[in-house]
């Protein structure tokens, strides 16, 4: 009787374990990533950009100093681009606008700071109008000092270069990463160009959940 009981128990448990393991394998999704992981780039040693200051020409064409850090309890999105950009900048900003709009009440806790890499053509009025076509919570940043722009770009690991050929055609080359910054001026996540609006929304929701202490 003792052996029969023990054998039955072993058989049942073995079947249970086998079924569970084979079930996991058969039903596993193609992507097994942690749903609470951020899609964008997260560094072990994050960028800290609170000391980066550029003139904010949104309200005053002369510019008032703007530091790259979010208001308390908010997130700041930093981006280096230019208004004549035919594809990358409008796509990125449109994705960002879409992602932010989907946040509901949290949308009012997101600001965007766009620094132009093409200050000659991006006048304060043009840059401000361009940014406002994507968000009403934006800071248009513009410096005519190349060294100040380069210093700001270096802090983010961003690059830009403007080349004018013999025909006067202006070619602007620039990195197109978007940076999510907290109130301490720490870059929490970086989105390379190509990250979708849905993934941006995903990351922002996770960051706000963390801020709210619910994740």
């Amino acid at each position, binding site marked *: *009787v003792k052996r029969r*009981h023990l054998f039955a128990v072993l058989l049942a*448990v073995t079947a249970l374990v086998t079924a569970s393991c084979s079930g996991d394998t058969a039903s*596993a999704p193609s*992507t097994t990533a942690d*749903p609470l*992981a951020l899609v964008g*780039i997260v560094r072990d040693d994050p960028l800290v950009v609170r000391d980066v200051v550029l003139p904010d020409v949104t309200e005053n064409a002369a510019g008032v100093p703007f530091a790259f850090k979010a208001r308390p309890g908010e997130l700041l999105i930093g981006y280096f681009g230019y208004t004549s950009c035919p594809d990358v900048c409008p796509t990125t900003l449109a994705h960002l606008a879409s992602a932010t709009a989907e946040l509901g009440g949290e949308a009012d806790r997101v600001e965007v700071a766009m620094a132009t890499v093409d200050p000659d053509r991006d006048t304060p009025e043009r840059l401000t109008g361009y940014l406002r076509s994507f968000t009403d919570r934006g800071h248009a940043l513009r410096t005519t000092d190349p060294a100040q722009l380069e210093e700001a770009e270096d802090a983010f*690991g961003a690059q830009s270069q403007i080349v004018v050929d013999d025909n006067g055609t202006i070619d602007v080359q620039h990195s197109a990463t978007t940076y999510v910054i907290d109130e301490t001026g720490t870059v929490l996540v970086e989105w390379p*160009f190509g990250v979708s609006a849905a993934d941006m929304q995903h990351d922002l929701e996770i960051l706000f959940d963390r801020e709210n202490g619910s994740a």
Partner: protein
Amino acid sequence: VTASTDAETDTRPQAWAWAVLIAIVAISMIVGAVLIVSSGETEGEQVIITVPAGTAARVDAGEKVELMPSELELTTDDVLVIHNEDDETAVIGPFSVRAGETLRHTFTSPGRYEGVCALNPSGRVVITVT
């Protein structure tokens, strides 16, 4: 009859003790497996790129270095690890890696990432994640 009854009384508790013990072990195995999957510890392949010291100087001197292909094809959950052992920031497509920094990124979504890259003669890199 009495002897038989005593035998039953002695053996039943031992069988159930074994059953409980084995069940606990089995449930622990199942829960552990589920936790490993749900915590995202399952990773894809790891692609490691190392930028040796002196690379930026070689590029600045006009040398065409070839430390990585111009196209990388990855799948979701693959991990790109970039070790920058140089003394200048290395730019590999969308990744800007500071001097001495190791950047590790897991691709959780399909996508196409393109940008400058001085680590191959074309000067650019395209990373496709499917």
